[in-house]
């Protein structure tokens, strides 16, 4: 494509991140420029987008291992004590014949966080290499990652409800375990990672 497309940053324009008002680019070195309409701080691109995204990604990968390995809850009944990790909880649903539910939880708790981390690493990596490979599809992947991430919280809420309901001393008692904390950290960190990434970086190189 040789046609010169009208790109805001090349035309000396920038749009407000919050209200999308199109403005002339603040002069280089301007310490603090504010949107004249909504008051948001103006940036050409999200500040230090790649470094931030990397930092959140590395942190979420580190937290991922204890999140999967440690139990997220302990069930004590008169029959004994049972420790559940994310995966054993899904396996339990599967063996008790509730496979549609097992599939939903497996997707939300296992597939989504891993895919999210892999996709974001791929996006940051290709941007750093200045790749022009399938920009449109990469932007779509980013949009998807941003939209589905929150559903991974579902296991945290399951634990919250179980802990609230099952506390009949002597009969049945469920306690939350540190695995749940690590897992919540993974979800929150990947959400921050997705927020920090600026999809416009995918398109920037082409225009120079």
């Amino acid at each position: 494509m040789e046609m010169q497309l009208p790109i805001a940053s090349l035309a000396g324009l920038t749009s407000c991140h919050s209200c999308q008002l199109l403005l002339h680019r603040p002069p280089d070195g301007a310490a603090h420029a504010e949107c004249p309409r909504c008051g948001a701080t103006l940036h050409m691109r999200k500040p230090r987008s790649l470094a931030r995204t990397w930092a959140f990604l590395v942190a979420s990968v580190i937290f991922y291992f204890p999140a999967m390995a440690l139990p997220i809850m302990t069930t004590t009944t008169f029959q004994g004590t049972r420790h559940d990790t994310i995966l054993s909880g899904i396996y339990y649903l599967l063996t008790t014949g509730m496979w549609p539910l097992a599939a939903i939880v497996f997707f939300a708790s296992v597939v989504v966080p891993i895919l999210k981390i892999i996709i974001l690493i791929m996006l940051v990596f290709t941007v750093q290499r200045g790749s022009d490979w399938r920009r449109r599809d990469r932007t779509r992947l980013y949009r998807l990652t941003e939209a589905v991430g929150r559903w991974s919280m579902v296991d945290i809420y399951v634990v919250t409800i179980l802990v609230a309901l099952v506390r009949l001393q002597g009969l049945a008692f469920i306690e939350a375990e540190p695995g749940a904390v690590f897992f919540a950290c993974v979800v929150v960190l990947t959400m921050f990672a997705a927020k920090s990434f600026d999809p416009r970086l995918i398109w920037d190189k082409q225009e120079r």
Partner: protein
Amino acid sequence: MRFCVTPIGPQGQHTEDHLVKSKFIACHECDLLHHVRVIPDGGSARCIRCAALLYRRKDNSIDQVLALTITGLILFALANAFPMLTMRLDANFQETTLLTGVFQLWKQGLPGLAVLVLLTSVLLPLLKLLLLAYILLPLRLGMVPPATGPVFRLVLALQPWAMMEVFLLGVLVAMVKLSSTAEIIVGLAMYAFGFLILVLAGITASLDPNTVWERLEVR
């Protein structure tokens, strides 16, 4: 309905003005400039290069969202005032409200997790509803409330962190998990909660941020 908009040509890039008036919009995902065209009510415009949503048109967005917000606040009160689920195991009953789980997590020595659940499933959704009411009620009456810019920015930023619908899925999963060992009685709050999720989804679908931003003056 989806509409594509044509990007402006290289010749039409600047105006004499300090501001490039709302005639143009830059895609927030790929930075391509587009002409803002009039689209039919209920329509939306997408970027021709990356297909990101550029803008929508909802003529009575403020009315709809305000009505849903007030409904949502009432349902929110109901969802918190009554027991949500009751578990019966033989002669033992255990009642729970929205907040019981938060207290339990705190008591069991996981305060961070308790705070996260409290924020994402109770406080942030409530804050979002209250702030929407704060902005939309005066706007509906023809006034612009103070600090609309920062407040509405906060509302939009809260969007991903208010996770009530995810919480509802969690409740359903927990109910199914327990259904083989104990009887679960669904309380009034649970129904209020279910409707609240629909109302919140309605707010997301009807909210056209532009109708609020357009009411603000450009300084």
